[in-house]
């Protein structure tokens, strides 16, 4: 293993939503940096998927955008979470944690399997 991992299918939207919840209104670059930093620079983000994902979330009403000024005084598009986005985030977070817990139970090593009722040998 080692090296960087690509963002898994379907998790990018969740990361974007979580980022916006944590940081508040943010432009695309800010979101990208935050995701990379949070992953401890283990993730490479494909911008070919980030911006379409942002557009999709906006079309679906999870985030809203407005134009403002960036830290270097440039015209920038800021995204923020909508109420529907908050709901969506809560739902998907729950799903992920549950899925993780299940997988963890499967994959945790050295856990003694429940002995068969009859007991062998």
């Amino acid at each position: 293993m080692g090296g960087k991992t690509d963002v898994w299918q379907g998790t990018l939207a969740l990361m974007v939503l979580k980022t916006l919840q944590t940081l508040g209104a943010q432009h695309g670059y800010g979101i990208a940096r935050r995701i990379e930093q949070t992953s401890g620079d283990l993730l490479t983000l494909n911008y070919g998927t980030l911006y379409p994902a942002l557009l999709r979330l906006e079309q679906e009403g999870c985030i809203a955008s407005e134009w403002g000024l960036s830290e270097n005084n440039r015209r920038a598009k800021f995204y923020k979470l909508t109420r529907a986005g908050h709901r969506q985030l809560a739902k998907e977070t729950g799903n992920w944690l549950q899925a993780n817990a299940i997988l963890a139970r499967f994959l945790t090593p050295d856990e003694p399997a429940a002995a068969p009722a009859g007991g062998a040998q």
Partner: protein
Amino acid sequence: MRKLRALLLRLRGLAPTAQAEHDLQDEIGLHIDLETEANEHAGIPHKEARRQAMLKVGGEQVMQAVRDRRSLPALESLLQDTRFALRQLRTHPTFTATAITMMVLGIAASVSIFAFVDATLLRPLPYREPRRLVATTELVDKLGPANLSYQDYLDWRRSNRVYQSFAAWGGEGFLLATPGGTEPVTATKVTANFFGTLGVPPLLGRDFRPGEDLAGAPRTVILTYPAWQQYFGGRADVIDSSVRLSGEAFTIIGVLPQNFEFAARGPSALFVAMHPTGECELRRSCHNLIGLARLKDGITVAQADGDVKRVARELQQQYPGSNRGQDGIALPLYEQVVHNIRPILLTFLAGSGLLLLIACINVASLLLARADSRRREFALRGALGAPSGRIFRQFATESLLLVLIGTLLGVASAATVMRLLLSLIPAKMLASMPYLKTAHLTGRVLTFTVAISVAAWLLFTLIPALHVSFTGLRAGLMEGTSGGGSLGWRRLGSNLVVLELATAVVLLAGAGLLGRSLFQLLRVHVGFDPSHLATIFVEAPETSYPGDEKQLALQKQVEARFRTLPGVQAVGIANLLPVSFNGNTGWIRFVGRPYDGHHIEVNERTVSPQYFETLRATLLHGRWFTEADAPQRRSGHDHQSNLRQTVFSRRGSDWEAVREQ
């Protein structure tokens, strides 16, 4: 919900705005700038920092991904194809008009004929469980399925083992007094269980009750919906009121549903309960009814046919005088209704199908020729990077447009064609085929339309597309001149022409034969001069003119009055028009020739002495009737009497037979 919202927004994105594009460039540009700055912070020189930023962000690639997400790329290219195809069709108006006209002709013809086929052959008869209904009647050598006598009907009903219910019906006619004068109305006399057998309850009032079809019962009538509207103003209080039909009082007990039809009988305004008191009903050898029965559960028509034949055989032994040679038959009611029109409809359907085929081949050839002349265009598009799927889709879009326009116009004209065809059928003939009037664009007809459209679309797409792909894009580009024509195209094109010509020959031969038959039919020598003849129906009910004397006196009066009309040269009277047939037959025996056990059955009609002169008929031997023959001819109904004056037509041998008397 969220998906729907996104879809709607993407649909709106189909119309791109300059603002959206500008915003996109700003957004991605900012990202690259910020990325560059970050790289510079890390100590990378500006040029290299920018290069790395652009590599990482992706620039144009990202923007295209966003643009794709902004609208629906598949739909967008479809719209593009459609716009392009429309432009193509507009810039070649002659081609477009020809192709669409051919499609419309083919589709209108086949769809309208199919609608009639659907209404007649495919739709079940409008009765309860129509598959269990059979027509059952007597069968004689000379006529095939003939009529059933009332006496035989009673025996059949009693002795059969296959029918849940067994009704009988026969033609009838009445004179009805209306405010506008006395009108003849068509009617059907039925046994009381007739509507029960069909499974049709009346709309108003009640059905006939058991026993109302017996001799002693008061007379009852059920109106059809049109008769109720026409003669009784659609009033509900007609139920239980009395009406005089040919001078006799009938009680109206019910009205039939609006959509009721009984095609086996043809037009009938009224249905009256049978009143078996007439001479015919009492005589076993008088056949004037047709049986209608509902099969018991699990009985097949073949079983019913066998059982009816068994009963008929028993009756032959029991009543040899009247029933010799009288077999029985049971066949599906559906067969009785459609067997005359089925071959006509199938001929039309085949004809219109061939016409459609010719139209499609024509359009396909046109498209092929055009694809050939457009080879350079496609070669160029291919060279500029258009994927072959996209070029194929271009063909599909163009032919889809053609087929769509052709189908829509074709279906619209089919409705007109159907009205036109219906108006070509004589009203009397149409009245006996009520199901034709119910032809319209049903689901089945539309399915048929869609099926032929899809087939045409595939044909129109595949033929030019295969041509272009076989020819090869490179060859198309190199050939330089347009319309060079390759061997493949010539082979495919000439095969299409061969197929089309063959189809056209089949169609022409069929049409020619039909025309020839009609021509022959119009020139059949009928044995008299059919020009300058006018016919008129006179109805004189027994109640007003009882007895032969009065009937004969009326005949003479009618003849005399007509003869005084200007332009009238001769007047004859018959109970049946020439060249028509109603199954009236009689059995004859020759004086002096021993009866050999075989009935000699001959067609029969009653005529006045001047009948043949009026027709200008050709006389082979002997003489016509004279006034002196008339009283003998009308010697009541003594069927044992010798037919002294009988005109034999057809063969000389018949004449020899008569001379033997």
